């Protein structure tokens, strides 16, 4: 065979053309690329009809209105509700992530009964009727033995129908032990109670303040109702209002403030008194308010002038006395100054002195119950159920002293003292608590000195969790009766924290319950009915929804329509009628207080010799640190200088680091009198030398792989320090030591 030039070329061209024309190669190329665009393991979300449902977020006490976008029966996106009095369209990172909680792997999918050891996570699914029967049998048994008062409930709130149902059940059953989880709410309520003589929450008219003096409050780190505070902060920027932030660490709030004044940690109370000193000495105070509507001023003045001159205060706080003087003048000269306190997100109660001192500052500049000031806001009284009729067992039980000692001889002012709970339980051979209900709370994670809390829980014979998620408390319970999550249930959400108006939001079922869960309100009603007698009589409703509708009465229609109800006529009384103290006036030094206040900073645990450093917590919007474990989306936003792999970083000043010989990223053991953990260091110029800061919200041991096992829980390293007057947990930090590993 001989090939000429021509045939060679035709061979080449023919071969090429033949290959190109054969569809096989092209078709398979095309098919394979199409296949790669439709991999069966990449989900394709189904399309459908779009609708929107207005509801309320309950993931924090902020009370934001939300609008949930749905596609058919799936909730696909949470947005802030436009026109809502709290958040007007804004929404926080946690609220945005709620669908990951709703659909997440961490849900408890049915009532569970423990079959293994506590915490071993061996469960048996039971029916709701079995579950209710079990609880009722236990309660009936305790009651018949005259131990009704050893039943205890821990809830995140004492406002709204669900907490009221719990309270009602305990009352008619015969136990005084309703406990609300601690926060600065407690301190503010007590300060107002003592100084105003009324039971009310603190409302802050932040929108109208033009000079905000914050004693370590994380105004934009999650303090108060977070979205509302962000909005207020932006308004301050637009209107030129000034913010002064006092704290030892450059928090986001400090960074955004007009002036950051670092202070020796824990000495805010002294600074507040120093400011009062200048204001009084220079007669910069509001004489109308002080002269006409207050009492005890002279005594207060004497105390302040004697003990808190700027030089003394500078000594204590580390704040330059001239800075102090000019701050006092600026504050007093502002037209609507506002002082707030409660560190970080306000999750620890703090010392009563501090709240009284700061509230006194507000009183000095006359911004109590006035525009741009602090308001004493009573709860909206829409829950008007008939008085319960107690039988003799209940009456006896209700006479018993509370487990936590609140309201007792020693702690006459406090209403709830969860911080004392584990101490009391652990101090007795036999647990004084025989049954514990936990709802909307996760004390095994959120209460300080976790080891002690865990020990206490292990002594309690019967623990029931109502949690929707497998959190630390649920994991260590005997029975889990999972509540619907807020996107599956009706619930009234009254009084967003820190708000100076009356707003009641309504959570409503955006989607139908995803699992075999039950509304906690329904479960309470069922338990009551199962217990029978007077107890059953106290719960005349068929179910929770009926109860809620009846309770809201004529508000029901509008609250369903709008998603919230607000009282346009709400006002706080004028100063003439505002105070219900013995003097009928605002009391600088509360007459009702039996022990005198000394306004000195709280000493924290640990000796400065074995623990040369001070450990303080810090809060971040990017770490949900209370109510709930951080959903995966939020954890994704956490910086790699906070969490890297499973390791958490503590912040430390480069100078301090150099003294100890630490470099960025170094592993260290952190030790406090309460515990020890391995962490890494992050050098941060924004923190005062000598201080170590650890974020809250990490170190979960429960939930799922997206949440658990990352970092450490601050509460394992700190313990409570009891405020001598209130009994609240006044700890703001703990002494600590770092050692290289």
């Amino acid at each position, binding site marked *: *065979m001989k090939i*000429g030039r021509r045939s*060679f070329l035709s061979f080449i061209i023919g071969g090429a053309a033949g290959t190109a024309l054969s569809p096989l190669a092209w078709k398979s190329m095309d098919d394979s*690329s199409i296949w790669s665009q439709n991999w069966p393991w990449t989900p394709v979300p189904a399309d459908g009809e779009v609708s929107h449902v207005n509801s309320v977020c309950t993931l924090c006490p902020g009370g934001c209105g939300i609008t949930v976008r749905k596609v058919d029966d799936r909730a696909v996106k949470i947005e802030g509700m436009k026109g809502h009095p709290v958040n007007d369209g804004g929404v926080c990172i946690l609220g945005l992530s709620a669908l990951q909680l709703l659909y997440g792997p961490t849900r408890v999918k049915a009532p569970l009964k423990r079959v293994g050891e506590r915490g071993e996570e061996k469960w048996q699914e039971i029916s709701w009727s079995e579950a209710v029967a079990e609880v009722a049998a236990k309660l009936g048994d305790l009651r018949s033995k005259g131990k009704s008062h050893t039943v205890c409930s821990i809830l995140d709130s004492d406002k709204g129908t669900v907490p009221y149902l719990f309270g009602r059940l305990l009352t008619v059953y015969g136990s005084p032990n309703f406990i609300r989880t601690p926060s600065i709410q407690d301190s503010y309520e007590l300060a107002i109670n003592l100084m105003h003589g009324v039971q009310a929450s603190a409302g802050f008219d932040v929108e109208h303040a033009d000079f905000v003096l914050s004693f370590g409050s994380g105004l934009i780190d999650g303090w108060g109702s977070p979205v509302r505070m962000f909005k207020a902060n932006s308004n301050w920027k637009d209107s030129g209002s000034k913010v002064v932030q006092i704290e030892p660490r450059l928090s986001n709030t400090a960074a955004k403030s007009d002036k950051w004044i670092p202070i020796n940690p824990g000495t805010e109370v002294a600074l507040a008194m120093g400011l009062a000193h200048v204001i009084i000495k220079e007669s910069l105070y509001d004489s109308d308010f002080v002269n006409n509507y207050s009492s005890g001023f002279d005594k207060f003045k004497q105390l302040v002038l004697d003990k808190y001159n700027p030089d003394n205060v500078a000594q204590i706080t580390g704040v330059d006395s001239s800075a102090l003087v000019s701050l006092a003048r600026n504050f007093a000269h502002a037209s609507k100054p506002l002082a707030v306190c409660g560190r970080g997100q306000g999750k620890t109660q703090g010392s009563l002195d501090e709240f009284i001192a700061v509230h006194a500052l507000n009183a000095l500049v006359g911004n109590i119950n006035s525009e741009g000031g602090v308001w004493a806001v009573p709860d909206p009284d829409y829950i008007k159920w008939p008085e319960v009729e107690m039988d003799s067992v209940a009456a006896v039980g209700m006479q018993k002293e509370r487990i936590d000692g609140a309201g007792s001889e020693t702690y006459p002012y406090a209403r709830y003292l969860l911080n004392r709970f584990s101490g009391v339980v652990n101090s007795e051979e036999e647990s004084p608590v025989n049954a514990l209900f936990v709802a909307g709370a996760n004390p095994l994670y959120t209460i300080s000195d976790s080891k002690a809390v865990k020990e206490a829980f292990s002594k309690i014979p019967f623990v029931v969790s109502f949690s929707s998620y497998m959190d630390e408390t649920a994991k260590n319970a005997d029975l889990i009766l999972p509540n619907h999550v807020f996107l599956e249930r009706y619930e009234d959400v009254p009084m967003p924290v820190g708000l100076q108006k009356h707003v009641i939001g309504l959570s409503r079922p955006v989607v139908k319950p995803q699992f075999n869960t039950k509304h906690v309100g329904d479960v309470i009603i069922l338990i009551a009915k199962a217990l029978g007698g007077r107890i059953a009589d106290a719960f005349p409703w068929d179910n929770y929804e009926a109860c809620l509708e009846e309770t809201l009465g004529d508000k029901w229609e509008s609250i369903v329509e709008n998603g919230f109800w607000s009282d346009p006529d709400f006002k706080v009384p004028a100063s003439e009628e505002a105070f219900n103290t013995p003097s009928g006036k605002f009391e600088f030094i509360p007459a009702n207080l039996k022990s005198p206040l000394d306004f000195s900073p709280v000493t924290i645990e640990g000796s400065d010799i074995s623990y040369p450093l001070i450990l303080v917590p810090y809060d971040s919007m990017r770490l949900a640190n209370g109510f709930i474990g951080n959903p995966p989306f939020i954890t994704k936003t956490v910086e790699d200088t906070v969490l890297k792999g499973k390791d958490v970083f503590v912040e430390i000043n480069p100078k301090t680091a150099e003294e100890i010989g630490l470099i960025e990223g170094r592993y260290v053991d952190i030790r406090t009198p309460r515990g020890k953990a391995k962490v890494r260091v992050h050098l941060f110029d924004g923190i005062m030398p000598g201080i170590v800061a650890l974020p809250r919200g990490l170190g979960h041991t429960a939930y799922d792989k997206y949440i658990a096992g990352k970092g450490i829980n601050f509460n394992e390293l700190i313990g409570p320090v009891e405020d001598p007057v209130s009994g609240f947990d006044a700890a703001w930090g703990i002494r600590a030591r770092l050692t290289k590993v």
Partner: protein
Amino acid sequence: MDSALMSRGVKRCPTWQFILWLCLFGGVLLWGVYAILLIWLKGLNQTNMNDNYGFALWIWADLGVIALGGGAFFTGFLKYVVGKDDLKNIINYAVIIGFICYSSALLILAIDVGQPLRSWFIFWHANVHSMLTEVAFCLSCYFAVLTIEFIPLILENRQIDKVPFFHNLSHNMHKVMAVFAATGAFLSFFHQGSLGGTPSVLFGRPFSYREGLLIWPWTFFLFTWSAAAYGPCFTLFVTRITEKVTKKKLVKQNTIDLLAKISGWMIATYIIAKIIDTWYWATVTAPSKGFAFMDFYSNNPLYGIWILVLEIVVCGIVPAIILLTPKGRNNSVALFIAVTLGCIGVLLNRWVMVLQVVAMPVMTFDKWVMYIPSWQEVATTILPVAYGIIVLMITYRYLPIFPQEQELNPNP
């Protein structure tokens, strides 16, 4: 037994020895294949690349082998277009080395992209503004040309040549080879250039960005130039190694000398151009974007000014001087050092133009990011080396690659 496949009159190592080595490099190759399968099945998470290192070891390897493979087009260009006929004694080897380099480059690209099954979109949805489009077109065309240049060589195998069809095919192909070589050279100018353009059109990356002529940044020309300059170094380097391994002289000194001399001139002129380019970039381009020259070489654990000195002085000026002096060319040690330095120089240049570009922070609040390739990346990068050696072993054993071999090594 396999001696029947070998050319007449040449001596090759015993079969067992050949197979032993084949197995050794075959093992390395299989290791690479395993890594490739992992990457294709599990995805690019098998690498240590990340969002900062979108281009990493592989892209460097690609640019590197293509530059080293430049010996093929430039030798072809010199022989067929310029008419340096002496180079016929080394052109076969240059073509095979080029083929190995380019096929490796294509293989690496197929591993490197996230969706290899869609790679053809580059042709179907071509974006004429993209340097990578230009690269893809020219690279595939040039690879086809290299294959066509390689085929007649294969056909010259003693047994294949016995088949009249293949014999004639080979004959005909040889006749048109000049056309292919010229086409190849032309394509090569472009894809080497567009590879140079690839980092330098990135106006968001001041380290690699270069101004230029028309649509081409200066590095377009510099890359072609450097491939032409250093590619022959690699041809000479591999030839020299082959001679060492086979313990035979395979190419006459006059051919080596000619290629070395041309390479020397190319390196010398290239380095001058490179220095001017660097100077202009350091004093005009970079400052206009807010960067001081030393910003590119400080505050990081690796990229110091030493790298520039190494590239320009040690791996540029030094080999140029050696290759331009007859004494240097004739001293086999000096010559080997020069071509080795040349290869290192061009690889270093490609490294900084890929890796330093992405390592360097551009936003003021970014940080330098360092990276260490995963074993999967290393294995797939070493794979072409094993593959290349195997191809060279086989082709050397069974094909008449070196026309002067018999003459230089008369059978005892």
